[in-house]
């Protein structure tokens, strides 16, 4: 299991390849990558991500441990960036390894659902019109109820 909270960019190809190495009993690897999306009506200049050092790492580790137990994962990787990020940049990734694909897919979705509303990150969007904190969505909170 590896959890990394970092400001530096990550290499999706290298991270995925490294993660996929050495799991001879794991038949399925799923990766998800989140990317900074431009806004359709109001061009995004930068997205700033703030986090709570210390709690962020422990919250992500706890989620990852829950996912390992619940979906019988052989391994899990979570990388999440903070600081200023520009449209098209990768914000975060999760990777899961399981014996079969259903567990690997479900574990990745589980981690993403929890990461959205239980990991202490806050996004602030700076556009040509000004800057504002991104509001949480009810649907993100609702998404947790299926688990």
């Amino acid at each position, binding site marked *: 299991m590896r959890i990394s909270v970092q400001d530096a960019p990550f290499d999706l190809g290298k991270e995925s390849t490294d993660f996929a190495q050495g799991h001879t009993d794991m038949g399925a690897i799923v990766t998800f990558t*989140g990317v900074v999306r431009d806004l359709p009506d109001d061009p995004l200049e930068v997205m700033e991500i*703030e986090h*709570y050092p*210390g*709690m962020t790492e*422990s*919250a992500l580790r706890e989620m990852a441990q829950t996912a390992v137990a619940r979906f019988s994962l052989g391994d899990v990787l979570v990388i*999440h960036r903070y600081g200023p990020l520009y449209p098209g940049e990768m*914000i*975060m990734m999760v990777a899961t390894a399981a014996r079969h694909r259903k567990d690997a897919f479900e574990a990745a979705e589980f981690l*993403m659902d929890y*990461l*959205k*509303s*239980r*990991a*202490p*990150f*806050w*996004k*602030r969007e700076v556009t040509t019109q000004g800057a504002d*904190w*991104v*509001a*949480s969505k009810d649907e993100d*909170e609702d998404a947790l109820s299926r688990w």
Partner: protein
Amino acid sequence: MMDVLYFAWVRERIGLPREKIETEAKTVADLVAELRAREDRYDLAFSDLTALRVAVDQTLTDFDASLDGAREVAFFPPMTGG
């Protein structure tokens, strides 16, 4: 002495990221009441508790949580990770 931390717009409204507070508050709600009584900027930041979340010693909890033995309390809006 307790470390009190603020994140995102809570930090902006209060005007600082963290401070040390001498308090006898028994619960998070007591601490919030103490802070609100200090100055308008605190009162404004804590005016709608449904818009806020709290962590005690880096674990998410509720506003009625005990502060017995707590060293660090953090206030912030709902999280927007991912």
